[in-house]
């Protein structure tokens, strides 16, 4: 990534780009998940393709969040906007930390879900790269990990909605929070 520092002015270009890519992958993976689970087995090919797209999006989201964490470690983050009250800043920090945890854990549990699935359906990253299963099939663990994956995904999306609503509120109050992530 570029060497542009995250000074007091804002997030680096790389941080901003990966933030939005991450958001896009999560929203798309979630929407497709909602669709794919309802597709009947009579449309197996469509269901299979949707699952593969979902898995690819999840893996991309995972890679992106790893990149974001690395950039954050390297470039830090901008100083908080002084216009935001301290209590809101603390709430924002907690929510953002939770988002990072969920952004890492949800795809990991998704990958585990695919590994534990009773039918050995392969995971084809980008439609062509066959990724190994981490475990064998397990009738006992599959529903547990799947439900956990789903619960974390729903929590992640709800939290991200709150995160977006808060950013929009800051923006409407004339604060720089959203603009700094949008255009630097």
């Amino acid at each position, binding site marked *: 990534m570029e060497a542009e520092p995250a000074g007091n002015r804002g997030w680096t270009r790389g941080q901003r780009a990966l933030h939005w890519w991450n958001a896009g992958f999560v929203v798309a993976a979630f929407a497709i998940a909602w669709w794919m689970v309802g597709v009947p*087995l009579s449309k197996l090919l469509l269901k*299979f393709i949707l699952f593969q797209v979902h898995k690819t999006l999840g893996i991309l989201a995972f890679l992106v969040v790893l990149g974001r964490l690395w950039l954050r470690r390297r470039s830090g983050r901008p100083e908080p906007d002084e216009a935001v009250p301290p209590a809101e800043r603390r709430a924002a920090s907690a929510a953002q930390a939770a988002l990072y945890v969920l952004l890492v854990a949800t795809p990991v549990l998704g990958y585990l879900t695919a590994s534990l699935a*009773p*039918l050995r359906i392969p995971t084809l990253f980008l439609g062509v790269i066959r990724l190994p299963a981490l475990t064998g099939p397990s009738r006992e663990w599959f529903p547990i990990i799947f439900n956990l994956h789903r619960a974390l995904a729903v929590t992640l999306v709800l939290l991200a909605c709150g995160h977006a609503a808060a950013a929009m509120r800051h923006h409407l109050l004339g604060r720089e929070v959203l603009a700094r992530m949008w255009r630097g």
Partner: protein
Amino acid sequence: MTRVPSRALGIVLAAVLALGPAPASAGLLDYLISQHYGTIGFSVSQLGLFTVDGRFLRFAGRLAVNEQHPTETRIDVTIAAGSASMASPDAVAMLLSPAYFDAARYPEIHFVSSSITQTGSKQFVIHGILTIRGIAHPQSLEATLVREQDPPAGPVIADFKVTGSLERSLYGMTANENFVGNKVDLAIFIRLSLDPSAHGS
């Protein structure tokens, strides 16, 4: 080989199939095929990428060796279509649905042999008619005798490995043609035991 006539299936089958009618003293030997000892498994390739398999939990049959009329030696097996088992409950539901076995309308899958030929010392080819969903088609299976016991006490048993393949579309199972392969491979392991109540004459 120690007893005459032997009840051991491999010897009996070989003798009957190769030599023709046995002496008049011989008769009908009835071997039972039980779901308790053996599996009837199937597997299908999906998109050529991976394979999904399953098996039938309930089946029963018999091999009736007619020593006097070898051509009437018959294998007859009935499988409960509804006993199909796979790793995923959703897959089982799909398999039993009208698009596949339609198990509610056609509860039984049936195979009856028409002829058996010996192709090796322990290899046999079984030709017969397989009926699925009420549709009958010729089906051949390759059987290999893998183990045989003829203990002084207890029933004669013979373990066979049987393989074969069929095209599911022949039986009207054409759903998901773009995903589920047409060729179904069969992997069968059966144990034949001499029915103590009906053997000999």
